[in-house]
């Protein structure tokens, strides 16, 4: 049974059909990648899954529960955490405070618990801190925990963002171009980390432009073009698919080149 099952998903913005009749499923314990040229609708699909947009048509089933109409915070609580294409950390807060945000949905202390400092509340507070530190260690950024997020180098900010997503205890993490702007060495270690995330039993759904990352890490690749799904399969299958090559290189271009030259300009429909 798939962890995430998307059926006939469609979304239109004004005159632009961003996503049209897309169906796919994400199997638990695997790394699934969504690739496609700019404007293909990848980030839109992520925003539909995570509740930021509401689909015009179609179903999104997560563990057989419908996600349509749920607000983003409720989706997180069900076990789906995300990162953003452009980094969206809380710039004026420390790294640790950022990651502690991920623990919010697993806590329950309210106003009275906070005012009375009840034993349960204090236990929860120390659990929040220690779990946040675990996630920071896992992403190898715990040495920065008291620094302001905005002062971190770009690569580390990305890692903090992943740590924040992991802190929500997700079963599915949705990573939107985690390798964008990273150099070769940094992306290689990112790939290793994504594998480690899977080894923890967490399913990964990935948008990525860096074909090295995609082909190296994915169990399953989905290719999107103009809002429609045009191919899906194992990385090697997808790489050899002529429709995919055409989508990346345009009509009539030489079929010899692999889709490694994908442009890495950011998707037009940012969150």
């Amino acid at each position, binding site marked *: 049974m798939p962890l995430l099952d998307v059926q006939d998903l469609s979304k239109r913005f004004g005159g632009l059909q961003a996503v049209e009749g897309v169906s796919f499923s994400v199997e638990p314990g695997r790394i699934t990648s969504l690739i496609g040229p700019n404007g293909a609708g990848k980030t839109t699909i992520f925003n539909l899954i995570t509740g*930021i947009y509401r689909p015009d048509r179609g179903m999104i089933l997560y563990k057989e529960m419908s996600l349509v109409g749920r607000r983003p915070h409720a989706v997180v609580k069900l076990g789906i955490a995300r990162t953003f294409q452009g980094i969206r950390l809380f710039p004026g807060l420390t790294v640790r405070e950022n990651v502690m945000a991920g623990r919010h949905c697993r806590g329950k202390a309210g106003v009275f618990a906070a005012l009375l400092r009840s034993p349960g509340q204090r236990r929860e507070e120390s659990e929040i801190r220690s779990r946040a530190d675990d996630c920071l260690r896992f992403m190898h950024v715990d040495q920065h925990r008291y620094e302001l997020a905005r002062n971190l180098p770009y690569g580390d900010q990305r890692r903090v963002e992943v740590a924040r997503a992991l802190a929500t205890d997700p079963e599915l993490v949705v990573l939107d171009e985690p390798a964008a702007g990273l150099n070769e060495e940094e992306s290689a270690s990112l790939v290793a980390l994504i594998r480690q995330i899977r080894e923890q039993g967490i399913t990964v759904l990935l948008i990525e432009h860096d074909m090295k990352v995609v082909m190296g890490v994915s169990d399953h690749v989905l290719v999107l073009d103009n809002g429609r799904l045009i191919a899906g399969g194992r990385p090697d299958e997808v790489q050899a698919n002529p429709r995919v090559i055409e989508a990346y290189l345009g009509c009539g271009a030489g079929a010899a080149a692999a889709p490694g030259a994908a442009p890495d300009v950011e998707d037009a429909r940012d969150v």
Partner: protein
Amino acid sequence: MNLRRGFSRFLGPGGNPARALPRYFGPLGIVLLCLLPLPLDNYLRAVLWQLGIYVLLGLSLHIIVGYAGMFQLGHAAFYAIGAYTVGILNLRAGWPILLALPVGAGLAGICGYIVCRPILHLRGDYLAIVTIAFGEIVRILLVNDAGGWTGGANGLSGIARPAIGGFVFRTNLEHFYFVLVFVLLGIAAVRRLEDSRLGRAWMYVREDEAAAEAMGIDTVRVKSLAFFLGSVGAGLAGGLYASRVSVISPDLARFQESVTIFCIVVLGGCGSIPGVVVGTLAMVALPELMRVVRDWRDGFLGLSMILMMIFRPDGLWPRRRSGLGT
């Protein structure tokens, strides 16, 4: 976090143990505050009482503006709601002040909650405008004697003084101590909220609302809780005010009052509790004590607001990187 260290952290600005003030600072501060009015004359004691009221108002608005980052420019409306509720309960139903105070605070909180729900989605300055409008609506309702209960433009008079057992708070000194208790409790409450799951959620919303929502924070709930709690604080301050001056008028809900409270928070340094105290000193104590320039009080305030924004935009006592991450 740690109750044994609690007292020293009761009033201090800190959070990070490495930077926390010495352990004796809290109790020492409280003792000094208790001794402060003793050598002062009656007028200055009244000023101190007034400062206490404004610190409470500042703290309550601080939750909404400083933590949750919402521009609330009609806070005085809830101050007035608290004051009028206490006044009406006391005058019409004969309730003792101590019983009416929590009801006034609660009613102000409920009003805050109801008002904020439809407007939470508005962008910063639009929110400011609706809150201004709400403040004016409340003031006009009071002036026009809504329901025949508010006494119109003259307001209410003859509200009783607070009493515990047989002891009635009468003098300025007694009222100062009465308010001081609430101020200290208020500071403790806001500090505890700041360093809690809810307090952090407010700051996430302030920093980046969409990211907060996407990280699992119910932003609507968190923001309306800020409005609720802030309005409770304003209502409490209103009730305390009514029970000392015993005469209240619709002027409590004036826009100028809302602006004063707003400036206490912003000038003091958004997001910092000592900033609220410093802001109150700057906005209320300074003009009050410099009576020679009282005619120019508003002009002086205006000038300092502009200069502050240009030269010290983070406020007089900005929020230090606190120990939330510790």
